């Protein structure tokens, strides 16, 4: 997993609420047995018509936001299906950070496993950043994970909270399976106790 330290880039505004993971990556692209290559189909049914032509109105099809690395989105981003294909598609497109007032739990977890930083901020902050994102390619936001801040292109700075363990893993690009494997003795002990206490499991 790539480290996440600081990011300065274009932010795309997606004010729609309840953007679900079916929208982020529709089912027909879940048939892959790989993690890569999904970026071209990110937001597929919002982004292309039935013939595969780009829908010009869609934000990521507009010249100003084609190279966006940050999304500023409406409430409850990533709800619905647990498909990790959603963060894989975002990452493959080049999105490393999503900012919203709230995220669905599973999507939120999945982001951290892929080096994507989901940032939860109060409504007023998201509104201000949404406005900034609307300015397009000349407006670059900066996300600083170490200092836990997002700065808009006009210099407004917002502090965000993050779980210390998740921050540590993102900053260092740590693979948590490797970390947990080191705890095998504790897992062994737990299993021995469990075999006594709840042998039917």
């Amino acid at each position, binding site marked *: 997993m790539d480290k996440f330290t600081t990011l300065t880039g274009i932010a795309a505004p997606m004010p729609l609420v309840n953007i679900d993971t079916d929208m982020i990556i529709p089912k*027909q692209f879940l048939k892959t047995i790989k*993690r890569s290559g999904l970026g071209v189909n990110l937001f597929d049914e919002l982004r292309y018509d039935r013939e595969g032509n780009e829908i010009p109105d869609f934000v990521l099809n507009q010249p100003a936001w084609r190279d966006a690395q940050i999304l500023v989105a409406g409430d409850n981003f990533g709800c619905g299906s647990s498909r990790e294909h959603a963060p894989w598609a975002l990452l493959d497109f080049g999105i490393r950070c999503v900012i919203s007032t709230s995220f669905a739990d599973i999507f939120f977890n999945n982001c951290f496993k892929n080096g994507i930083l989901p940032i939860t901020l109060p409504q007023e902050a998201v509104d201000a950043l949404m406005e900034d994102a609307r300015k397009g390619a000349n407006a670059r936001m900066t996300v600083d994970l170490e200092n836990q801040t997002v700065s808009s292109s006009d210099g407004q700075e917002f502090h965000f909270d993050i779980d210390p363990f998740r921050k540590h893993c993102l900053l260092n690009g740590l693979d948590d399976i490797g970390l947990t494997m080191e705890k095998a003795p504790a*897992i062994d002990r737990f*299993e021995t106790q469990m075999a006594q206490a709840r042998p*039917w*499991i």
Partner: protein
Amino acid sequence: MTNTTAGAPRTLYDKIWDAHVVERQEDGTCLLYIDRHLVHEVTSPQAFEGLRMTGRKVRAPERTIAVPDHNVPTTWDREKGIDNEESRIQVEALDRNAREFGVNYYPVNDIRQGIVHIVGPEQGWTLPGMTVVCGDSHTATHGAFGALAHGIGTSEVEHVLATQTLIQKKSKNMKVEVTGRLAPGVTAKDVVLAIIGETGTAGGTGHVIEYCGEAIRNLSMEGRMTICNMAIEGGARAGLIAPDETTFAYVNGRPHAPKGAQWEAAVSWWRTLYSDPDAHWDKVVTLRGEDIAPTVTWGTSPEDALPITATVPAPEDFTGGKVEAARRSLEYMGLAAGTKLTDIAIDAVFIGSCTNGRIEDLRAAAEVLRGRRLAEGVRGMVVPGSGLVRAQAEEEGLDTIFKEAGFEWRLAGCSMCLGMNPDQLAPGERCAATSNRNFEGRQGYKGRTHLMSPAMAAAAGVAGHLVDIREFAAVTA
């Protein structure tokens, strides 16, 4: 297994959590032991590949259960194989991974194959007090047994395969109480849609919900699974119902349920799994069972749920970001504000899914359809949740009722709930569905989904439009 808060009143969620903590970090992050790991073909190939690349094994293959469900054809000729190459490769990958890593496995041609969330309980893999995970958001279903069950992403699937644990932060406790008795014609599906209509699709975010109250207590295990299945549609990490005699009666005798002395030991522990009277709740929602009407969705989010007696709302009825979302939903659904829900004509009926694909659901739909036929121009599909549900339904003659009513009778799988196999809606086609999501494109590109109970979906098929099951029964009796 240490109980760090012994003595203090705890919720059911607290108790199950405490019983599974392997290690707790200073910031509260825990390593949680996982008792059962369910696996299907869509969210697992990259996880098994990860194990292979790092030379890791499945730590507890005996606690891991694999079954293909999302991609499998539900047509009767499916033994000839899967036409779509990518779907076939994915199912073949599961087959290879299950055998190579030695996990429990129900292949496509096994009578026990079905939707993973129907197979788990049916085979007795799901038991009270367990932690159950699967790379699928509807894992919440298993909470009906008083198990802590939730969906995970593929990276976490790999983590559980390799370590039989998950790194977790504890969620908050939310209580959803449904008091009193449900009116005739009102089912578990109506209850859960009414709850989501009340709390919103993000109302449970950051919480584990325990459903309780007389109306919940009176539900069968099938009904309880319908309720917990859609906990995720309310944004919750998991949904739970405390185990009781109904639970024990369902579990007893299932192939992987404990037997003899172990059964007695298990039941005596399971009887301690309830929320203590003074336990702390971060959020409480109460609904009166008597107030819940047969409920359907009008829009493209499960929170767009209304009593069948209502009319389609206008965007101005909402505030904030929901105004634009409602406008978009109405356009997508091809509906005008002010239309009576009972005037919405449908083209298709889908009965099945992990929400409503169990035997009781098929019985309820068949009861409505007995001696009746689908309206002219309406197509219908019944997809049992597992091969065993299908066999049971056939033994009871339900398949004949469905076929005589003009429905297709299919083999088990996820089918048109998400349309990863050929079972899809055509653009613009409108469906009365017993599944769980009415998202844009969920059942097929530009397909339009109205969620409802099996009886309501069957009745809509006969009438050709959405109907109030209470009036339908009276009018056509």
